[in-house]
């Protein structure tokens, strides 16, 4: 009797349990039950408004979404905070991913393949995305993120300041076909005036820390951090030596590039030229002085244009992967991607049309063609590596050897390779 009784209870609870579990998915899709969270490194009010607008629109057609939260994190520590969230078991559902981290995130299986959703959505037009731009995010039969910003590095300049220094205008040089790093350095030197706190060229995101951004200089000299396989360090190459000698000369010989620990602000008006990504130059619109923009100068080896990318991805540890992927597809479909143009250069071909860009951004049509359309089609994306986090700091601390007047460039570069080569393999 007793056994039978126990069996009954067991069966009963099993049914209840199954029913409970069975209800779960149904419950998950119930009205307003899902809250999505996306981390981003911008706290720009316009950017936030753009994403909030997309979220509001999405919620109208998707009642199961209670809310979509956008979490602005500090840019300098963004990857650190994001990885800590993931390691701490509190991964966001969606995240902005920097180009340099893409390979590492993918290698650690942190990103979800969203290609199925993209293909299942009518009118999404994956094929519209310039294939070069998708490189970091794409594998056979999979796409791990949408590059919502494919932003070329360019030289923005203060035409008034350069004119006052009696130097030739970068745009004039470019038109003559003489826009080279060597000539850029001459312009910078003419503008630099230590007494007044004026500098010829600065590079705000580099700040002697984010060394991978130096690709915008070294690629013109034909240099790379490592070879295509990512297994052999090429910091010690002849080309890299030339590039770093050149850059070092600007800092310490010409004193036209702010040395480490010196603050400079292009937008404040005392820097002649600034190496900035287009996506970060929006406040130029409000400047009182006359500004211009040209592509990166030609190096002795190549006319190398460099692109920084930001991807939007679904994290594989998200608890609402499907809902997150659906939102990502919605937020990056052709109509919505068009809304980004004002802030972020797009890699969907119709949105690379100079007319479209000129209408939405601070650039005029000529600039838009030169910087965005040509830049993206010719340019290559910044250096990335699957083991970046363990290499990044070593390279940074070793390269510190370069940032002093009496640096031994070739020895320092050799050291970089000695130190990171074991990790690359």
């Amino acid at each position, binding site marked *: 009797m007793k056994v039978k009784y126990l069996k009954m209870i067991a069966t009963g609870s099993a049914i209840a349990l199954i029913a409970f579990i069975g209800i779960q998915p149904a419950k998950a899709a119930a009205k307003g039950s899902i809250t999505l969270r996306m981390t981003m490194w911008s706290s720009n009010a316009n950017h936030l408004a753009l994403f909030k607008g997309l979220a509001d629109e999405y919620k109208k057609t998707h009642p199961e979404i209670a809310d979509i939260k956008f979490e602005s994190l500090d840019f300098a520590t963004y990857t650190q905070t994001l990885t800590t969230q*993931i390691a701490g078991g509190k991964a966001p559902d969606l995240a902005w991913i920097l180009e340099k981290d893409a390979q590492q995130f993918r290698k650690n299986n942190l990103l979800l393949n969203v290609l199925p959703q993209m293909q299942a959505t009518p009118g999404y037009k994956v094929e519209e995305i310039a294939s070069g731009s998708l490189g970091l995010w794409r594998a056979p039969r999979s796409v791990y993120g949408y590059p919502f910003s494919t932003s070329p590095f360019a030289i923005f300049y203060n035409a008034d300041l350069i004119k006052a220094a009696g130097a030739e205008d970068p745009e004039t040089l470019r038109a003559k076909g003489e826009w080279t790093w060597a000539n850029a350095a001459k312009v910078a030197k003419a503008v630099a005036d230590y007494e007044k706190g004026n500098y010829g060229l600065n590079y705000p995101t580099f700040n002697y820390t984010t060394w991978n951004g130096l690709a915008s200089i070294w690629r013109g000299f034909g240099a790379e951090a490592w070879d295509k396989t990512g297994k052999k360090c090429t910091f010690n190459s002849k080309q890299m030596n030339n590039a770093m000698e050149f850059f070092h000369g600007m800092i310490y010989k010409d004193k036209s590039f702010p040395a480490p620990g010196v603050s400079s602000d292009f937008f404040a008006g005392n820097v002649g030229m600034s190496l900035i990504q287009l996506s970060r130059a929006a406040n130029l619109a409000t400047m009182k002085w006359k500004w211009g923009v040209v592509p990166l100068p030609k190096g002795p080896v190549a006319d190398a244009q460099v692109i920084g990318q930001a991807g939007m991805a679904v994290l594989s540890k998200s608890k609402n992967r499907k809902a997150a992927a659906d939102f990502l597809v919605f937020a990056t479909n052709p109509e919505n991607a068009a809304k980004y143009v004002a802030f972020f250069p797009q890699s969907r071909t119709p949105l690379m049309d100079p007319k479209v860009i000129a209408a939405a951004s601070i650039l005029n049509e000529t600039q838009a063609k030169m910087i965005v359309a040509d830049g993206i089609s010719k340019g290559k994306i910044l250096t990335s590596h699957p083991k970046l986090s363990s290499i990044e700091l070593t390279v940074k601390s070793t390269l510190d050897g370069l940032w002093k007047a009496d640096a031994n460039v070739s020895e320092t570069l050799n050291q970089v390779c000695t130190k990171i080569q074991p990790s690359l393999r």
Partner: protein
Amino acid sequence: MRHWRTGLFMAAPVLLGFIFLVLYPVVSVIRDSFTSYNPLSGEAAFIGVDNYTRLIQDETALEVAKNTLIFAAILVPVNMALALFLAVLLNLHFKGRTTFRAIFFSPVIVSTVAWTIVWKYILQDDGPLNYFIGLSGLEGNNWLRENPWPMISVVMVQVFKNLGMNMIFFLAALQGVPEEMYESSEIDGANRWQQFKKITLPFISPTILLVAILTIAGAFQVFAQVLLLTGGGPGLSTTVLSYYIFVNAFQIFDLGYASALAVCLFIFVMGLTIAQWQIRTRWVFREV
């Protein structure tokens, strides 16, 4: 013995806290140091002494260990000597000494982060310090970028921050020195310096020992200053063990290797403390 239940009961919260937040972590960190664990890639395995073999071969770790010792070797004497010096001065009787005590103590109440942020600007190459040095006709330095200044800067920022606490400890000890002892020595014709050496120092030696132990332990924990002032640079010149552990654990998420480094730090601190305790009989004149 009647009250041992009450005693244990009253001490229990601290004891339990100790067990879960100090003892258990120390045991686990030793266990974890024999594993590889990366919460990002999900990798987790027992790998024996691999982390330790890697540590021995890691040139960076060697340099970091060296920096850690240099840091402590500068910080501890400078901090203690200055604190004692100020305590002696401020134990004199003059108008305004409480104000001076408060001024020297004030950075203690400011958070390390706030203190460091402000100093970072002050020490910048184009910052106020170099400006004022420039006014006097001398040339400043790039304090946070040119060796050996970064290490010295990190040490000094930490010294100014925490000096006040040690100063107060010393003041308390100095106030405990019985006046009669000076009076009798004065009759013997001892001068101030002799008095200080023969009477004051021996009398406060237990405090010196305690302050030394705490300051050394503190020196091995320096973190915010390094992260915010120099980021461990230039090169590795200011990367100390505690910061290196943080980088490996919470930036690279190589928790196994970071655990092995943490075990080293633990051994460092414990070893030094035991050593000090052992040699105390040679210079500490009274038991605490």
